[in-house]
């Protein structure tokens, strides 16, 4: 039990500390693919350090909600990251919430971000919040559908069981998971404000979704939000790994398998980050009103995954 708690703490810390590194890696790959000189891998850490050393500027009409929202958002993301098995499976914290609760935690963070964006009353905050809600209300059901497909296979909505079914029981091919994986990729792209749904590097305030909501934040508040954004990308990445490529995650109590599990995770994240940056480099951003079509396709694929499960796997 003590080992379990210790492992849980280590795993959560790894998530918090490695998340900016994943962001740095994606940015580096993007720069290389575009033919630019890449920023160093550690650039996100430097940015965070810089932001934590600055004085915060807060609008005169901001309510307390605007101040504490970054802490809520960051905590939600830490909680979500702690729930997903990254290197060790079935840790003591896992039974606290299943995948449905995980969707809820991510939604809670989003609600606070949207409320904080509208709190100041600038047109861009409201604009961003509105668009974020448009994207998320389409992405959430699709994400749930993906989780249902995975949980139908393992007969449980708890992540440790899902991971165990795929990684530690006898090998089986599940065609439904192929559909679910593509759907999950599309949802992750939309939820993490990446191209083709949103552009994380744009300076054009009228085109922004996520960035428009955080325009008024500065210093430590912005640092927490940026860190939460990195954590979100990390959480979605390890979630994708846990659902579709869980091989390598150490089974319960197997401490000896941990170094290999860590290496496997880093390798999988590196490959995933490179794939994300490749997809971002070759695509243009879709017109905002095409985002529903994009997410509708994701939903359709997730439903197809479920149907395939009933047709082929039961």
């Amino acid at each position: 039990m003590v080992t379990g708690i210790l492992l849980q703490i280590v795993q959560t810390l790894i998530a918090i500390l490695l998340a900016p590194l994943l962001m740095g890696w994606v940015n580096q790959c993007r720069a290389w693919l575009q033919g630019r000189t890449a920023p160093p891998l550690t650039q996100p850490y430097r940015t965070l350090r810089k932001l934590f050393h600055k004085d915060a500027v807060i609008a005169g009409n901001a309510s307390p909600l605007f101040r504490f929202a970054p802490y809520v958002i960051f905590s939600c993301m830490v909680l979500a990251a702690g729930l997903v098995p990254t290197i060790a499976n079935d840790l003591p914290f896992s039974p606290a919430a299943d995948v449905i609760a995980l969707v809820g935690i991510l939604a809670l963070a989003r609600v606070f971000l949207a409320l904080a964006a509208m709190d100041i009353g600038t047109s861009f905050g409201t604009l961003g919040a509105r668009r974020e809600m448009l994207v998320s209300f389409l992405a959430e059901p699709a994400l749930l559908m993906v989780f249902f497909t995975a949980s139908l296979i393992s007969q449980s909505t708890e992540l440790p069981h899902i991971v165990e079914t795929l990684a530690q029981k006898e090998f089986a091919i599940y065609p439904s998971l192929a559909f679910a994986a593509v759907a999950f990729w599309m949802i992750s792209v939309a939820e993490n404000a990446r191209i083709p749904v949103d552009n994380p590097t744009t300076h054009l305030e009228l085109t922004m979704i996520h960035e428009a909501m955080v325009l008024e934040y500065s210093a430590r508040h912005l640092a927490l939000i940026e860190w939460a954004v990195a954590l979100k990308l990390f959480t979605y990445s390890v979630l994708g790994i846990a659902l579709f490529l869980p091989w390598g995650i150490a089974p319960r109590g197997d401490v000896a398998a941990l170094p290999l599990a860590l290496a496997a995770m880093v390798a999988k994240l590196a490959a995933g980050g490179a794939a994300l940056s490749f997809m971002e480099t070759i695509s243009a951003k879709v017109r905002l009103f095409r985002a529903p079509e994009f997410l509708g396709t994701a939903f359709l694929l997730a439903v197809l995954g479920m149907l395939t499960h009933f047709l082929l796997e039961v």
Partner: protein
Amino acid sequence: MPKHPDDLALTPQTEGGFVWRSRLEPGRLTAFARIIQDEGGQLLALWGADDRHLGRNFTVHVAFLSSVGLIWTTSELDGDQPAYPDLAHIFPQADRMQRAAFDLLGIRAQDGVDGRAWLRHAAWVEDAFPLRKDFPARAACRSPRPETEPYPFIRVEGEGVHEIAVGPIHAATIEPGHFRFSVIGDRILRLEERLGYTHKGTEKRFEGLDLATGAKLAGRVSGDSHTAFAWAYCMAVETATACSVPDRAIWLRALFLEMERVANHLGDLGFLGNDVALTFGFVQFWRLKEDWMRLSARLFGHRYLFDMLLPGGVATDIDARGKADLDALCKRIAGEVQTLRHIYDEHTGLQDRFANTGIVAPDMAARLGLTGLAGRASSQAWDARVQFPCAPYDRLDVNMALQKSGDVLARAEVRFTEVFESLRLIRLLLEQLPAGALHAPCTQAAGVCEGLGWVEGWRGPVIVAVRIDADGRLDRVHPHDPSWQNWPLVEVGVLGNIVPDFPLINKSFNLSYSGPDL
């Protein structure tokens, strides 16, 4: 000879040129404008001047584009409350120019529908007119006052309509301008621009300058069109002083102008990719632009080719090795742009964003006077280099780029075509560059003299009108940027589009703030 009625009394500015001069009674301006309109012409520019120190009153000047070329009319106004007939009901593009003429000189368009201030942002008091000769320019600079009255934007009323105010400070380092959107959800019902934030008194600054310094200032009216403005200014001064410029200098000017066009088009094509988040395209086009500017710096000493022109000629030359380098770069860039064009053409995501976005239909473009590059993307077939070629374009046989659809895609296509055409022209210019002197002295004319220069810059027709006083110093200079008449068309182009597409549409026009704000 022009096919206009003889009673219009057109006199050519120079023998064999395409600029005509006409002195008109103010009362006949409306009828004259109607003749131009019936013939399919346009109003290019409108400005005023204070001629009281010359023993006359205020004058209003209009530049019309017609089938015979550019007609420059001058009308002297009467009385203490000088007024001229409103031209905006015939040529809507005159509206902002008329408002600016009132702000600067106090000459009013009679029965003009829009009486709001344009350039005056409360930086000077309402009854002061900075371009009048008796206005103390230095006193005004010392006391900027905050704007007390909000600018009366035209409001859209109704259920669910709200306004988004953007600028003048933007998230990126771009020039200041205010955009007021009335929207339902993300759909744009109306856009109203408010410009004038970069008004810096350029026209006032010209007064009293010597001719060579004037060329430097003219080139800085809008930095991305440096050569276009400097050439138009030099052309005006040389016409006024009857100075004959050596052939080699004129050919080099054309070389600089085409180089400026290529640099700007490459940059814009990159920006258009960037605005749809295709950063690959942005980086590639900017790499080419960077190569281009580095060669410019190496050959001529300036990345943006500043201060290469002076009245009477040019300040710099190109040698055989420079010619070979530039020729080789033209060849390489033509090939690379061809490849990038294929990528843009076949990228479904990019085409989906470009096509049918920000449409300015040809009939609307004709009615509102869309000009230059954006005009050619909406079937407005005007290009001074083609129809009214000054030397050396009369020897080059320029091909006009023309598109019909008037959307972002059409404006990108015109840029692609013009890049290839300009690269071809540069290679021709280099090949046929005549030998000779670079510079001829401009002798001072006897008494006050006037001239007008007209150059097809990369954005559109650039006009500079100059009056030189009896001492050989500048008395009145009006530089006209084509952005004046194209800005209102951005308001038209975005109608029915969605807010997140505005930056792309705006970038596809890529208009100047500094040029019309003066």
